[in-house]
């Protein structure tokens, strides 16, 4: 009898569980109905409850500056916005994993330019042009290049991330240079060598280590100034070339009078006066007038006598877009327009934001407090983007790993670059 009662209870528990699972669909359907209403009104539902929006953003100053500007929008539109701040890889995976769902979780997402090809080819992002969005003349034109496919806009450039040259003021002076004297990569080599010669415990230059993407991104400006690039006009790999090898030689020369560290250690080392120079992204460090370090645009000449190239600094603009399966698309567009408005962009500077607008970056009042933004503006006008190819993630994994092998001395340059070329050709051949 006891056994029968126990079996009965177990069966009842299972039946209840199944009913509970089944009812989720109905609830979801009901929710969809509510959301449709919300979409139609682009405001809260009839009960007055705030509409829930979810944003997936890059952690650090990029997402945090955006998060800090949301309160007025929430109040005005009666919405409750949840912000998810992710690491670079987790953000990419998070957006991609949600993209296959019929109805997604995220209303707005932050996207790195290097994912653009992969996301647009697979319909992850909504066409903002079709939704009625357009750029105004105040946005720095170079920052919008990565946001478009043909004439169609898929992203808006939110955070002006472009590599700049960070330097320690004291060590630069000790090497006999003023910031405005850094005209070429030969000057960078000279400062690095002099710093190490003067004190063997100091680093002349720090290169970025860690993931393959970090290693490659840090190197790309050095490659550009040597006249090389990682792919040709047909997106075929070009890494086993004399230009690449020459750039790598110079890069190794810098490494030999410095070292390799990750971003937090790089900033700490330059500000502490342990290192003379390093390439950084503006989001890592905000200089102040009396601070120990500052940054300026990366020079566009290899030597003082050589001809300047058009653009050298690497653009890593963090853009914002709306997923194609966003639950509240219309409201998301309003939010995107709000975030991209000149007033909100300018206000974001107080929260370590770096807008892609001339009016914000060159505002006289702003420049009094943040003089470095003039340099950033110049860098944003001339930066280069990573190649727009869907295979970019795998591409960086292979090339970054082989470059690391050269830097660490586990492979010769010829071995590593020839292997990388072979692997990349296979990758691009599909």
């Amino acid at each position, binding site marked *: 009898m006891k*056994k029968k009662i*126990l*079996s009965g209870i*177990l*069966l009842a528990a*299972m039946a209840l569980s199944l009913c509970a699972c089944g009812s989720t669909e109905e609830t979801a359907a009901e929710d969809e109905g509510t959301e449709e209403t919300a979409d139609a009104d682009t405001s809260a539902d009839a009960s007055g409850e705030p509409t829930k929006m979810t944003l997936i953003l890059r952690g650090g100053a990029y997402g945090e500056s955006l998060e800090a500007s949301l309160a007025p929008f929430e109040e005005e539109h009666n919405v409750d916005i949840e912000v998810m701040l992710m690491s670079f*890889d987790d953000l*990419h*995976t998070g957006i*991609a*994993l949600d*993209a*296959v769902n019929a109805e997604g979780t995220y209303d707005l997402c932050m996207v790195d330019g290097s994912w653009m090809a*992969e*996301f647009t080819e*697979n319909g*992850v992002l909504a066409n903002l042009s079709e939704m009625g969005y357009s750029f105004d003349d105040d946005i720095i034109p170079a920052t919008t290049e990565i946001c478009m496919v043909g004439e169609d806009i898929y992203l808006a450039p939110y955070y002006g991330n472009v590599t700049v040259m960070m330097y320690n003021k004291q060590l630069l002076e000790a090497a006999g240079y003023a910031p405005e004297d850094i005209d070429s990569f030969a000057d960078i080599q000279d400062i690095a060598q002099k710093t190490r010669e003067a004190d063997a415990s100091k680093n002349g230059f720090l290169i970025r*280590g*860690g*993931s*393959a993407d970090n290693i490659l991104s840090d190197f790309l400006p050095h490659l550009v100034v040597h006249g090389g690039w990682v792919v040709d006009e047909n997106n075929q790999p070009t890494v086993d070339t004399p230009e690449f090898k020459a750039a790598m030689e110079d890069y190794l020369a810098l490494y030999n009078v410095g*070292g*390799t*560290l*990750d971003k*937090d*250690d790089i900033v*700490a*080392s330059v500000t*502490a006066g*342990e290192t003379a120079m390093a390439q950084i992204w503006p989001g890592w460090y905000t200089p102040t007038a009396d601070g120990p370090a500052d940054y300026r645009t990366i020079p566009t000449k290899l030597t003082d006598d050589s001809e300047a190239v058009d653009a050298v600094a690497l653009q890593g603009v963090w853009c914002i877009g709306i997923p194609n399966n966003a639950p509240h698309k219309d409201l998301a567009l309003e939010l995107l327009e709000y975030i991209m408005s000149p007033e909100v962009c300018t206000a974001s500077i107080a929260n370590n934001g770096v807008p892609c607008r001339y009016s914000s970056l060159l505002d006289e009042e702003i420049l009094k407090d943040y003089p470095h933004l003039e340099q950033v503006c110049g860098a944003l006008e001339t930066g280069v983007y990573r190649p727009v190819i869907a*295979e970019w*993630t*795998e591409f960086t*994994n292979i090339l970054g*790993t082989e470059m*690391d*092998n050269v*830097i*660490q*001395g*586990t*492979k010769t340059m010829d071995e590593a670059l020839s*292997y990388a070329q072979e692997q990349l050709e296979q990758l691009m051949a599909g």
Partner: protein
Amino acid sequence: MMKEKRTLQRNRAQAATARFGLGMLTPTMIVLIVMTAYPLISTFFYSFTDYNYLKGTDKASFVMLDNYTSLFQNGYFQQAVINTVVFTILAVVLEMVFGLAMAVFVNSLKKGQKIMRTLLLLPYLLPAVTVALSWRMMLSANYGIINQFLEGLGLPVFNWFMDTKTAFGTILVIDVWQNVPFVFLLLYASLQSVSESQYEAARIDGAGFLQQFVYVTLPNIKGSLALCALLRTIDTFRLFEKVNVLTGGGPAGTTSTITQFLYTYGIKSLDFGFGSAGAIVMTVLVLILSSFYIKRAMS
């Protein structure tokens, strides 16, 4: 007639017992099928396709053994397998040695066993990511306490996670530090069940500490030792968080493990077909490693 009735009753009772057994098993079976069998079969199936997550299953096609071929020909995968095997062997051996030493030591204490037990367990209670981040701060080349300490003593300092000479060893030390308490706990529990009379008999026979350890302690806890080694082997083989947070598999692939490889080349690039092939290979490797214990347990 009576006999037939008894047989009928017995059959009914047997059928009821069987039904009850089946009823008790059903929830577990459902959970196993949904949570284990289905993902395993799906992964096996996808490992023969070129399934890219963003492109969807509709556009995936069968590529037969292509994923497995490129996996075994991939130099980075080969390096990851070697790293994983070496790391697993070293980590398990070190954890077993230190865990056993700690268990014997704490078990021999007359006072303060509870406090020692709690204190020694603390590293194991922390999440792996927290452990990794804490160690990253302590080992920072700039502001890390360990380099500052070494500098204070006039010793050379290292760039622990970015140098090919130190990165692998540093992660090994961190992993051993965190997981020794697990071994300690299991062996300590096992030591508690060893009868004191066996030690008394050994002492009467003139056995010293080492002889008692070899002839009394070890035979009594060999089952727990084997179980510990198995669990630690399986767990260490799947090492991911620490590597991903601290080195991302670098420098120059010296800390790359199989799971880190699968994450980089399968998950990050959303190439789930290739990733699935790697996952199947890893499952087979873990099964081979654990088969010795499983065979012993089954017999």
